């Protein structure tokens, strides 16, 4: 019979139409700004900079080595190295980024910067509501906007952050151990020199110079 | 000679004149359509509803579309033909003048000599239908047969021969 299929189809759409008012299960739409789907842990979109402690300027892990800037495929990272040095988490003097800008309108979320960073200083964020009415400045994230605490990192990627923290803690432990050893060695060397100097007072100036030099060498090695 | 008559006459004449003088074939057809609409409006103004509306239905709805379709089917270069050469233009002018003379003489001697007495016949749809179905039934039927023959002929021309055109 002609038109049988049409009637079947019409019945199906009518069932959908009325069913969607009766049965809320049918409607799969999530009303986005009010309702949100639970976030998947592996979500990532744009990079941010991690800092330890409370003060973001002091605790920034980044040492401005500029590896990420060189590796970034669309070249959306811009770093300016500082002239002076600041002590890092373990107290060692390091450079820090005087300027660190990421243009997220250029960023393609490839995560290469995260993979190349030797200091675990840059990680991927989950913040996606970045729309802005400022066409040029709104999407250019500067250092202060990029800096986010380690706690925040823990919050968005718990498993990954725990691993990173463990590795960092191990590294820092080793570092401190080495520093301690080096310091001890330097102290021992200094003590020996001091003893020698006591034995031969006229060469004091040269000996202290030597001591300082050997201390510097030990530090160099520890690094 | 009311204002509306003058306006409609101007539209009709402009449209048909443009249809003759424009270079682009599609523009010619559109201008001709304008002329046809003007003519239909003139019929309507004279109270001949059926004729006026049929004019629109046939000439705007069918003939113009047919011409336009032919142009779309053919290559676009042929749509931009230049106006006719001088000899054809001359012969066309002569034909137009002759036709105009014949019509003018017919109108001037025909209508003005005999005054239309009484009320003009009402050309309603009903009257037209009655005339077609009673007095003019034979011509109508003959035209019907002719058109059917033309339709079948067109169909025969368009049908692909079997075995060809895979």
């Amino acid at each position, binding site marked *: *019979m*002609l038109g049988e299929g*049409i009637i079947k*189809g*019409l019945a*199906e*759409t*009518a069932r*959908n*139409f009325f*069913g*969607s*008012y009766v049965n809320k299960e*049918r*409607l*799969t*739409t999530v*009303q986005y700004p009010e309702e949100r789907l639970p976030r998947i842990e592996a979500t990532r979109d744009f990079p941010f900079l991690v800092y330890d402690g409370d003060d973001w300027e002091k605790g920034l892990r980044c040492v401005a080595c500029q590896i990420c800037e060189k590796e970034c495929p669309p070249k959306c990272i811009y770093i300016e190295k500082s002239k002076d040095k600041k002590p890092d988490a373990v107290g060692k003097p390091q450079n820090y980024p005087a300027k660190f800008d990421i243009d997220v309108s250029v960023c393609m979320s490839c995560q290469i910067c995260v993979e190349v960073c030797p200091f675990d200083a840059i990680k991927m964020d989950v913040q996606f509501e970045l729309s802005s009415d400022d066409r040029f400045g709104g999407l250019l994230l500067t250092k202060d906007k990029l800096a986010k605490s380690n706690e925040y990192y823990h919050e968005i990627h718990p498993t990954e952050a725990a691993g990173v923290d463990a590795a960092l803690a191990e590294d820092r432990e080793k570092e401190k151990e080495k520093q301690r050893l080096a310091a001890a060695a330097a102290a021992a060397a200094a003590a020996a020199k001091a003893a020698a100097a006591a034995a031969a007072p006229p060469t004091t100036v040269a000996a202290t110079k030597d001591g300082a030099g050997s201390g510097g060498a030990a530090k160099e090695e520890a690094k | 000679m009311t204002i509306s008559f003058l306006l409609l006459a101007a539209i009709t004449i402009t449209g048909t004149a443009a249809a003759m003088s424009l270079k682009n074939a*599609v*523009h010619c057809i*559109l201008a001709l*359509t304008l002329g046809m609409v003007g003519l239909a409006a003139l019929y309507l103004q004279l109270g001949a*509803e*059926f004729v006026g*509306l*049929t004019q*629109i*239905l046939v000439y*705007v*709805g*069918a003939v*113009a*579309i047919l011409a*336009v*379709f032919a142009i*779309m089917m053919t290559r676009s270069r042929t749509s931009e033909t230049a106006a006719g050469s001088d000899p054809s233009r001359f012969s066309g002018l002569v034909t137009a003048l002759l036709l105009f003379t014949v019509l003018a003489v017919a109108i001037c001697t025909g209508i003005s000599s005999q005054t239309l007495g009484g009320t003009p016949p009402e050309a*309603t*749809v*009903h009257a037209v239908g009655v005339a077609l179905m009673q007095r003019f039934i034979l011509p109508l039927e003959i035209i019907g047969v002719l058109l059917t023959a033309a339709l079948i002929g067109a169909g025969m021309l368009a049908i692909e021969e079997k075995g060809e055109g895979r």
Partner: protein
Amino acid sequence: MPEMIDQIFVRLMHWIIGYVPTSLQPLCSAILSAVAILVVFATIFAIITVLERKGLGRMQNRYGPNRAGPWGLLQPAADGIKSLTKEDIVPHSSDQLVHLMAPILIVITSFLVYAVVPVGKNMVMADLNAGVLFFFAVGSMVELSVFMAGWSSRSKYSLLGAMRAIAQMISYEIPLVLSGVVAIMAAGSLSTVTIVNMQAGYTGIWPHWYLFTPWGITGYILFMIGATAESNRCPFDMPEGESEIIAGYFIEYSGFKFALFFVAEYLGMLATSAMAITLFLGGWAAPFSFLTWIPSWFWFFAKLLLMMMVFIWIRGTLPRLRMDQLMNFGWKFMLPLSLINLFAAGLWHFLPSGPTRWSVDSLLLLLSCFLLSRGLRRNKWFQERTYRFAS
């Protein structure tokens, strides 16, 4: 009191015209009616767009627009503002004048056809002697503006869309007109007002609509299929098939000109529905004799909305036809059936009233419908597909 409410708009107009000098009264009356038509049908268009989007959404288990205003009811206003403020881009190589004229002409013709639609008792702008003919004559001018739009854009997509649209409109205009002719035959008049008046009587509680006759229901269904094809609606929306030629003949239009085409499409749909109501569904007549106290204009617009619902329902259900299916259906099914329907309507007139003519007419129409559909099906078997390069 019901009489008073029924004629309230007519009285309002007479009251307004009473303040105008006699010489200007016809002009003033025409302008008032035109303004009323513009306002009412543009409002209905706005309502239909939001209804359609919400209805389609529900049929696909979605919410539909629900952001602009309460329940998304201000969506048409948002759409209008958007299309008004958008940039109007005209292709560089387009035919500027024709490109500009096409949307204007299509909207004018779409509004013009409402002049002969009786929306209520004594509520028609122009009671023409040949009203139905006027409707079809002006409706056929839409094809010309479709061609103008498609050709003047100088785009292959738009030209393809225009060719498809015109081929489809010409093919389906014939069954559309022929299926409407049965109502004209029964009423013995081309005037829309007379046709509605003929249907406004009742037997017991049942109305004398032409729908309730064998030829009437066949004619109505054929008319609605033809109307769907004429207004380029789903499932006959190949002229603007989004997946093939993007938007068809109005692809090169942007901003408000695009909106005008959109308006014209919906107005055309509303107009053909209004004509179907006039011809077969008794126009403004109430469906039962005990409901005549409800104003006539209410019934007209209720029927119009109901028809729109059916259009939306069909759009949400059926996929797009292929070109050869469309042409086969039009020429091999619709046209013969509408001719047989004419014959059936003639038979109905001459046979004695009673069950005889009912059974004869129904049998004739059912049989021809069955045979014609078999004819359609016979051509459905394709050759086995052979692959020359891959196998």
